[in-house]
């Protein structure tokens, strides 16, 4: 390295600048080296053996530890993305209740934002320092289960006399099965419904949206509700991957065929759907463009009374409750059929845990106990996926919105995310094509054709 940088100067009179230049260049190279280094910091800890998931022999006799409360409490670690920043106190309350019921177990937790959570989790799992229990959304659950990072809960479930799987919503619980083995317990779910500003509808003298509405009804109402001078837009749905995979189902389209071997994203229905999503902005001007939104979120605009109808998640209930107008929710209008998002979070146990039974107890408590469910419902921290109706009464009684039952009605037409192994890459690739279509750089047809080619490149 030295010879390169000193090349051609060796017989020249050296001055201060010349001498400082060499180390600085060296530092420059070092910076790069460190960057390269960062990417492989954990390379030394290559995973040597992939132990098969523990079988019955390693997880029997769970009851034995139950009664011995005199010894040191077992510490269980939990990692979550859904608690911070709004529900830390609720999580603390759940832990307090759990520790009261299980004095021999102590729960500590770490929280990360959703954006950083999975990077962190991947690293701790790789370095074998994963917490005993951690939260996984459905999309990532598939990835982790397929990579054998999770503990097979089947034996724990069987050994636990108090456990009854029928208290869970079975669709939601089965989502956390992989290879027909239970690798996670469903913790909560949320979905997306159709929010509307009643005051704006009243002012325009329009009927409120109802469950029979289609895209056409939505457009007709939106055109009447839009008031360009006042900066009010009739309707809004973002143009991005998640919105797209749901909206195409409202028109009978799909991204993959049923066994996910073939990409059908460029179908006629899907081109039509994407065109409709874009037309709301570009042709009918009933939805704001990105520039018109200029960095404000759709939720902010709805709350400010600038969007009359909005497709967004039920997690916004809390934030909208102090809006200075009345609002309600309805089922989303579809074109040829109804379709609604369904997002589920689950709790999994790490394959490397040393305290599987304690971890199981915590996972069970967090997902299905009455106490935890009550705290969750009372604080609108998503919804427990339990069948016990009485748990949900307090949820249904709360207003706004008045039509809370819509949240459950939407489950009849739920669409699960089209998960594949390279999930993050799929969302990026399709997202980029959708962006280009939105910005008018490509026609919807071209964008979806290119998306198809790109997805075919990452299907395994």
């Amino acid at each position, binding site marked *: 390295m030295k010879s390169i940088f000193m090349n051609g100067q060796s017989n020249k009179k050296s001055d201060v600048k010349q001498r400082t230049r060499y180390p600085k260049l060296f530092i420059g190279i070092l910076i*790069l080296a460190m960057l390269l280094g960062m990417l492989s910091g954990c390379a030394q800890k290559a995973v040597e053996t992939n132990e098969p998931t523990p079988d019955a022999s390693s997880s029997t006799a769970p009851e034995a530890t139950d009664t011995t409360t005199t010894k040191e409490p077992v510490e269980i670690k939990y990692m979550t993305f859904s608690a911070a920043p709004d529900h830390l106190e609720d999580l603390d309350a759940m832990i307090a209740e759990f520790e009261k019921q299980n004095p021999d177990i102590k729960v500590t937790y770490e929280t990360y934002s959703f954006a950083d959570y999975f990077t962190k989790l991947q690293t701790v799992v790789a370095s074998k320092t994963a917490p005993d229990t951690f939260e996984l959304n459905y999309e990532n659950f598939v990835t982790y289960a397929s990579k054998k990072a999770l503990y097979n809960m089947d034996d724990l479930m069987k050994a636990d006399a108090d456990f009854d799987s029928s208290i869970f919503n079975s669709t939601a619980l089965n989502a956390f099965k992989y290879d027909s083995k239970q690798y996670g317990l469903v913790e909560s779910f949320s979905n997306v419904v159709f929010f509307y500003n009643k005051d704006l509808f009243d002012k325009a003298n329009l009927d409120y949206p109802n469950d029979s509405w289609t895209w056409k009804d939505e457009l007709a109402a939106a055109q009447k509700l839009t008031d360009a001078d006042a900066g009010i837009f009739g309707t809004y749905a973002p143009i991005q991957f998640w919105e797209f995979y749901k909206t195409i189902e409202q028109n009978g389209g799909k991204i993959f065929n049923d066994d996910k071997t073939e990409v059908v994203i460029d179908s006629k229905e899907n081109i039509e759907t994407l065109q409709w999503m874009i037309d709301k902005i570009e042709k009918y001007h009933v939805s704001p463009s990105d520039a018109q939104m200029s960095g404000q979120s759709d939720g902010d605009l709805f709350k400010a009374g600038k969007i009359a109808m909005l497709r967004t998640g039920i997690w916004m209930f809390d934030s909208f409750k102090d809006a200075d107008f009345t609002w309600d929710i309805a089922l989303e209008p579809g074109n040829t059929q109804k379709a609604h998002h369904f997002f589920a979070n689950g709790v999994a146990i790490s394959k490397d845990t040393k305290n599987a039974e304690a971890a199981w107890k915590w996972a069970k408590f967090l997902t299905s106990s009455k106490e935890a469910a009550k705290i969750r419902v009372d604080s609108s921290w998503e919804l427990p996926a339990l069948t016990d109706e009485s748990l949900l009464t307090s949820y249904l009684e709360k207003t706004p919105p008045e039509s809370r039952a819509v949240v459950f009605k939407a489950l009849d037409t739920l669409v699960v995310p089209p998960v594949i192994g390279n999930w993050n890459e799929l969302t990026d690739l399709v997202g980029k094509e959708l962006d280009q279509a939105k910005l008018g750089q490509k026609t919807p047809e071209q964008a979806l054709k290119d998306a198809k080619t790109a997805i075919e490149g990452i299907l395994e």
Partner: protein
Amino acid sequence: MVGNKGIKKYLTIAFFLLPSLVGMLIFVIIPIIASFVLSFSKWDLIGDIKWVGFSNYIKVFNDPTIREAFKHTLVFIAGYLPLVLSISLGLALVMNKKLKGIVVFRALYFIPVISSWVAVSMIWKWLLNPEYGLINYLLSLIGILGPGWLQDPKWAMAGVIMTSIWKDIGFIMVIYLAGLQEIPDHYYEAASIDGVNRWQKFWYITWPLLSPTTFFVITISLINSFQVFDQVWIMTAGGPAGATSVLVEQIYRNAFSYYKMGYASAISWVLFALIFTVTVIQNKFQKKWVNYDE
């Protein structure tokens, strides 16, 4: 640095350097080797390592996304480098005046350098907001309808370049200032006696005598701008529609979003080779224009 006084001296030095050498070994050298080894593998951190030979490298050169990112990196350099150099040099010339309170101004221009990239990027994101941002407001005062900046694929890179220039001019200015202050006054005095005008003074005295500084600054800035990442990641995350996707952003995405450690390592090494080549070429050509004689 060391001289030729025997191996014992080397050992003594090595002993005193041990604390930092160990750190460097663990955090730099070993990871460099590991990333090189990994670049021939397929590994997602959790599962087993699969050896795939040169296929990662072959993929780097055939990946349209990487090609786009490479193009955008070059666009960034082409926009950033000339501007940051000329503005910094101009500022340094102004700041080199012996005026009262000039030190305060020098310090002011240096503040962005010590600010964190995250804070700077967040502030510029706001400044560049098409509706409420200060920049479009200022443009509107002179009757220009500002672009959508970070939301407009044609302007997003310009926004990133502006931010980077604003952050880096202070650093380069200080280096230029040091270079300027090394130029002996008697050259200028002699030139004045000969009736040389200001422009000629700059062109025939300042610029050639600054050439070692310019060379250093270009080399450092070029290395840094090949690795542009922080501001891109925070301001646009490579968007809109991939318009600001750059090489290191792709490395990060592949490693920590797609968990393709092998592929990300391969891109890193290609980037390293690229920077290394450019730097070597620069060193070869410096003879033609860098003047070390005083």
